[in-house]
């Protein structure tokens, strides 16, 4: 009878254009119904104000709210209905599980989404292939004399600039297309349930600020989120800032260098006093420190935060960031030594692995969370459809 009722409900939902929920989505809907009757956590982040605008939670609402959740853990430690309570509320964990499903659902091409389930394997394959490729390339170039140390080589003696561009540009362009399609699909799902209209200048500005400052890792009171326990800490926010801005500086360094190379006819290597090098060194150090910090925080995180099944994905992405920044810095320091060709292979290999895994790994969180924050900024400016008597 129970099964029959479920089937009937499913059929009804499908007929009404509402997708049947996955078990993880249904769990989020169950928990949000309890949260919506409680609301003690309203001040922590954007998830709860978004929740109070709703009476029920359909798939699109759940996808939107799951990506709005920054997994800061504040609501878990404050929750009067968390374990050992019968209600078993754990919003950061249930949201994390759905988030992974959304990355998978919106991945392009769709068949590649399955790599989110075996992300550790996926990263290992990409890294192995990339490293092997570059080591082999360098060995071929040097007639298998990489390690003989007879003379110091420049980067472009090993791989020409054009060769590098022709290798990396297609991967980068593919990343932009794949993530762009994912973003578009996600937005087309969640926009109708978040006020339909596009973002005003004000909403865009607010969303951008919330992204760039990681507003929702501040705990609502500015003292930060939770990591090991109920104490507030700004360490996650800071480590993420170092990582994100370090990554952006490295990216800027590469862009400026490309401009120098083609527009100014100034090929690498650059001195420390030049813009590309300065950006690269500062960015690399920042990225390295930030990603080591994130790794430490990830490993010391309270066991109930987030979805422990996703640690391989989280740590795999962080490991690639560490490898990329560390090998880049070592390459700079050891540019004039015999270790250079091997470090170059390591650096280029890890960058290639990073970009190959970009649309099918943890990186995607930034894209979908950013989109959810934009929609939140739009939605909160719309009048509520509810007329709760006490308001």
């Amino acid at each position: 009878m129970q099964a029959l009722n479920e089937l009937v409900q499913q059929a009804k939902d499908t007929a009404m254009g509402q997708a049947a929920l996955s078990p993880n989505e249904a769990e989020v809907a169950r928990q949000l119904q309890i949260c919506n009757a409680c609301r003690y956590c309203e001040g922590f982040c954007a998830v709860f104000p978004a929740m109070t605008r709703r009476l029920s939670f359909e798939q699109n609402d759940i996808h939107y709210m799951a990506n709005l959740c920054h997994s800061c853990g504040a609501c878990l430690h404050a929750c009067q209905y968390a374990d050992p309570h019968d209600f078993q509320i754990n919003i950061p964990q249930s949201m994390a599980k759905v988030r992974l499903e959304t990355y998978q659902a919106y991945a392009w091409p769709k068949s590649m989404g399955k790599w989110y389930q075996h992300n550790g394997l996926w990263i290992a394959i990409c890294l192995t292939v990339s490293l092997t490729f570059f080591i082999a390339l360098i060995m071929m170039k040097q007639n298998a004399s990489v390690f003989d140390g007879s003379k110091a080589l420049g980067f472009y003696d090993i791989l020409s600039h054009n060769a590098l561009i022709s290798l990396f540009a297609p991967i980068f362009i593919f990343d932009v297309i794949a993530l762009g399609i994912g973003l578009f699909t996600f937005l087309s799902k969640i926009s109708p349930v978040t006020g339909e209209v596009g973002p005003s200048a004000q909403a865009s500005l607010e969303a951008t600020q919330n992204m760039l400052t990681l507003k929702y890792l501040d705990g609502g009171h500015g003292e930060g989120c939770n990591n090991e326990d109920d104490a507030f800490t700004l360490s996650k926010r800071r480590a993420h800032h170092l990582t994100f801005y370090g990554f952006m500086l490295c990216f800027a360094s590469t862009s400026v260098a490309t401009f120098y190379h083609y527009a100014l006819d100034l090929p690498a290597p650059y001195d420390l006093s030049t813009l590309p090098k300065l950006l690269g060194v500062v960015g690399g150090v920042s990225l390295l420190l930030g990603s080591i910090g994130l790794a430490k925080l990830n490993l010391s995180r309270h066991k109930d935060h987030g979805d422990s099944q996703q640690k391989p994905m989280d740590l795999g992405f962080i490991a690639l960031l560490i490898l990329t920044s560390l090998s880049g810095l070592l390459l700079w320091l050891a540019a004039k030594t015999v270790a250079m060709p091997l470090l170059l292979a390591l650096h280029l290999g890890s960058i290639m692995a990073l970009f190959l895994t970009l649309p099918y790994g943890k990186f995607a969180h930034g894209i979908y969370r950013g989109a959810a924050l934009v929609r939140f900024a739009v939605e909160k400016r719309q009048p509520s459809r509810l007329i709760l008597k006490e308001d």
Partner: protein
Amino acid sequence: MHTRNLRCMHDEPQDVLVESYSEEEFWQDLLKVTGGQTNEEMARIAIRDSSSCRPWMKKHGVRFQPSLSGALHTARTNAFFMGGGKALINAYFRSAENLGIQIDYNATAFDIEVKDGVFKSATFSHLRLDGSTTQETIYAKSCVLACGGFESNIGKLRDAWGQNEWGEWTADNFLIRGTRFNQGTMIDRLKEQGADIIGDPTQAHMVAIDARAPLYDGGICTRIDCVSLGVVVNKFAKRFYDEGEDFWPKRYAIWGRLVALQPGQIAYSITDAKAVGRFMPPVFEGTKANTLEELAELIGLDQNVFMQTMHEYNHACQIGTFNHTVLDDCHTEGIAPVKSHWAMPITQAPFYAYPVKPGITFTYLGLKTDKTAAVYFSDRPSPNLFAAGEIMAGNVLGKGYTAGVGMTIGTAYGRIAGKQAAQFVLSPMQPHLIDSGLAGAMALSPSLENTLSEES
């Protein structure tokens, strides 16, 4: 632990609090809800303390947030803790640990020794991580009791409420909104040793909650908020009280007792499609039906009586201009009990029913104390035994309730009791009264959680 705010006096807007709420207005509100069963001196001390305690709370890690959506009517009078009571308790315990205070978790105090009004020791059973229990008696120079009322003790509630006219043990159908640990053990032990007791054992803060809530710890989310939008019938399918007497935030606290006095201690809040989206979302889905007949069948009420009740009500509705934000002119005529406001015929499918039971938040019977929070023995204050929170709230709140007032009393007298206990330890008079070489002050609080006070 299920608390969410604190009623605060303030003469001008203060961060999360808007406008002003004077001492006099607070006192008048308290006088009204208690019907005079209060102690003005003690009440005014708590009220004044509420204007200055928030910086202290912040210092110890409590953070505040603006009034919650759905509770905007309290933005002037009540300061909400960010994350609610558990976040507050987490912050206090963390702060205490940082001050070097030793905290024994999983320890239940089951006995206390008092001689001539002087506290000597308390005896605990400790639940160890391996599942074993050990006993320990701790001697201390002074002690603060902050261990709650007896609302979790069904046996004691049963004794207090007795049997009703249908031969039912009324308290058997009560649900406890907070922790299971408020057993009233210390009240009993101290009563045996001559402590003065105040309050009526049947007085409690009792609200209407969803009958499907768990026996303990349902907290705020199980409340039923749609009473004033429809009608409420008992298990004989009859209405029994004016559902539209006043705004729900002013009435929810009487409905627990109203339902407790009905047969089976159960009632059903009946609404139709017009109510959807007009009240705080319920934690459990209502029973939904396309006709009233079907609804009666689904919730197991006598269909004929139910239909008669609904017909009478629907025909008695004098429809004016429905406005849920004011005491509007939609009322009934010619039926008893009347529905004074927001009376709209229940005619628009789908129809919904929510089962309602009495949910007990805290009891008012407790230890007699004075403005120094000292516990009284034969009308004389103890020099070194103090009480704070639910165990003494009845001194100020003899009956009734207004949002956040329990937390006001708890915070004010908690601070007073702590100060008194520490002062006694440092005072020159204490060596005459108690053995030297004892530990300093100790405090007994619910082993894991605290239910004092709660929502609005």
